[in-house]
């Protein structure tokens, strides 16, 4: 066995070790400090009720962020997720209210739409080779237009008057559907259970299945992956489809949560989803997209919103803090990276 070459692994001095520590645990440390701070300033912060509320409030963003994580893992980017959420929200609303469909249909159609949007994105990015950011931006425009055109700009709610004036819509948001967004199992909000299960499943999928690792390989070095026999374009396509499906799922949960097919409801989720996924890079010094990191990122954003609202900080000042946290997390990831 060869001896370790000392000069290859120089003794880290204290400073370097501190820097390394912060790169690895800085984000979690920040999260911890935030939690400590909020629980000191407010004794209601660490109650069971508040914790489940925070988790419930981030469940939708987390789903979107997981989709974004997938597209980032294969080295892409999907800006169309926000509009896909909107489309799915409106689609499930329309199916329930305008067409009185049953639960299964209401769940499947939006998911299929999400997958379809993913395929369109993949076609544009993988096949036509338009850079991901720009291609998915264009798709975002188009989907926004489509869903607004479909509803003529109206939001959809139970027994609404039909936009074309043909009387009252026949359907309502049925309780079985609303359960997805508002129900509780064992006193835990259903969307929280959904989120945690999905985070766990995706984590297992990405780390313990062959397919999961192939996503990472595709993103890590497309050429090397191709030479190792990975069908990289297929996996890139999968990633966009998965991104679309997760956005659609988020849209369904959103519709169930607000009980309305609200137009453009998904728009604000894009930025938060992207932010969560990016903050995730820095968790455990992963330096790459990962679902646990994404989850932590979503939690940080959710906790900030909750805690700052409790402290009566106006929403716009919260943006400053959100941006600052983002820069901090990113600096941890990128500053020490050479080249």
């Amino acid at each position: 066995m060869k001896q370790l070459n000392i000069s290859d692994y120089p003794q880290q001095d204290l400073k370097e070790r501190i820097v390394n520590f912060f790169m690895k645990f800085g984000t979690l440390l920040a999260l911890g400090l935030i939690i400590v701070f909020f629980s000191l300033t407010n004794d209601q912060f660490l109650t069971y009720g508040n914790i489940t509320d925070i988790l419930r409030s981030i469940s939708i963003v987390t789903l979107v962020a997981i989709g974004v994580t997938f597209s980032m893992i294969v080295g892409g980017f999907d800006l169309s997720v926000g509009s896909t959420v909107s489309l799915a929200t409106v689609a499930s609303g329309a199916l329930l209210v305008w067409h009185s469909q049953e639960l299964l249909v209401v769940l499947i159609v939006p998911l299929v739409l999400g997958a379809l949007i993913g395929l369109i994105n993949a076609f544009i990015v993988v096949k036509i080779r338009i850079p991901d950011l720009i291609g998915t931006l264009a798709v975002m425009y188009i989907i926004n237009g489509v869903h607004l055109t479909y509803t003529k700009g109206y939001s959809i709610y139970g027994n609404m008057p039909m936009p074309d004036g043909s009387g009252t819509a026949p359907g309502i948001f049925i309780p079985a559907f609303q359960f997805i967004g508002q129900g509780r199992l064992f006193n835990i909000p259903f969307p929280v259970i959904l989120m945690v299960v999905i985070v766990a499943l995706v984590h297992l999928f990405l780390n313990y299945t062959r397919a999961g690792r192939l996503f990472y390989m595709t993103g890590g070095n497309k050429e090397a992956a191709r030479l190792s026999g990975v069908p990289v374009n297929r996996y890139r396509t999968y990633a966009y489809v998965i991104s679309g499906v997760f956005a659609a799922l988020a849209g369904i949960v959103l519709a169930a949560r607000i009980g309305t097919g609200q137009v453009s409801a998904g728009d604000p989720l894009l930025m938060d989803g992207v932010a969560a996924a990016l903050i995730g890079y820095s968790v455990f010094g992963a330096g790459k997209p990962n679902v646990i990191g994404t989850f932590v990122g979503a939690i940080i954003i959710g906790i900030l919103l909750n805690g700052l609202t409790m402290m009566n900080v106006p929403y716009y000042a919260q943006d400053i803090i959100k941006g600052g946290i983002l820069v901090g997390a990113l600096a941890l990831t990128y500053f020490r990276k050479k080249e």
Partner: protein
Amino acid sequence: ACTNQQPSSQEEEPEETSEETAAEETAEAAEETSPEQTSQGSDAEIPAAVDQPLKIAAIMEFSTGTFASQYVSGLEAQVKKFGGEVQIYNANNDLSQMANHLQTAINQGVDGILIDHGRAEALNQGVEEALEKGIPVVTFDNDITADGVTAISQDDYSLAWGTLKQLAQDIDGEGNIVYVWAGGFTPLERRNVIYEAFLEHYPNIEEVARFGSVSNNTALDSQNQMEAVLKKYPEEGSIDAVFAPYDEFAKGVTRAIQQAGRDEIKVYGIDLSDEDLQIMQAENSPWVTTAATDPAEVAGVQVRFLYQKIAGEETPSIYALDPSVVNVSDLPDEPVTMADVGQHIEGWGSPNAARSPWMDALEAKNAQ
């Protein structure tokens, strides 16, 4: 083509109406003018200027929310009844786009322009150009004061005062309230003026929390933020009421309270739509009171004023619709829609405001 005599007729009118400062009086006056016009007008003979398919432009600052949707339906319905065609220019919350749209409409040579929201500074230039070209303008909830423009409003001050008065009565002038608000929107800023005055007027009412943001997902944001506030004040009775002066706020807040099971907290909102009615009428709904005008009616009045202008009739320069305070307790148990709120709430809607006698004939003619 049809408006050459119009400026002269308008010039006399404003002086008369502007003396009647109180909004309510104006409203009455306007309502009363209708029968008068019957005698002076031409026994339901349709003026030539309006007896043709007119092209009307509606310049809107935004169209999100159910209020806007129902306002648009109201516009379309009324213009259609008159045999015209209305084109909606939606600026999507972008004032410069709104100014552009106004220009586009003028270039189009439309017969009349309706403006919904927006600010005078951005639109004055366009409005003046329109007036120069003889295109009449009727605004809604806007601060344009150009001569010859009829400005209707749903009177944000009375809206806010109406619902706040109810709030104060219900909690007996004392208690903790939560305020949902965001700046940047004229109606909300006006309502805020009344709110500040309200706090001064009732020193025993204390604002314990304030939040709010207007996004494409206002209701959900409000819901999440209200949840945080509820968690901060977990004891029953620590919050007595929420003032949510915009129905998207009220929806989110209501949902948060319902899901937290904190039914003792009551919500006082502004605006009303079919969806809002459903939420308010739900069992044990915390949303007990709202102050509102009927968006469709606002639209109807605005269109009718415009047609009167086109027909060369005199119209007031300002006209404020009477808001009504809708208490759930005043509504029956069965679900009510916007169409029949009037049956239960006194003064809801004023279907005959700004109605000239020939309008019935015109509507009848176009119904065929």
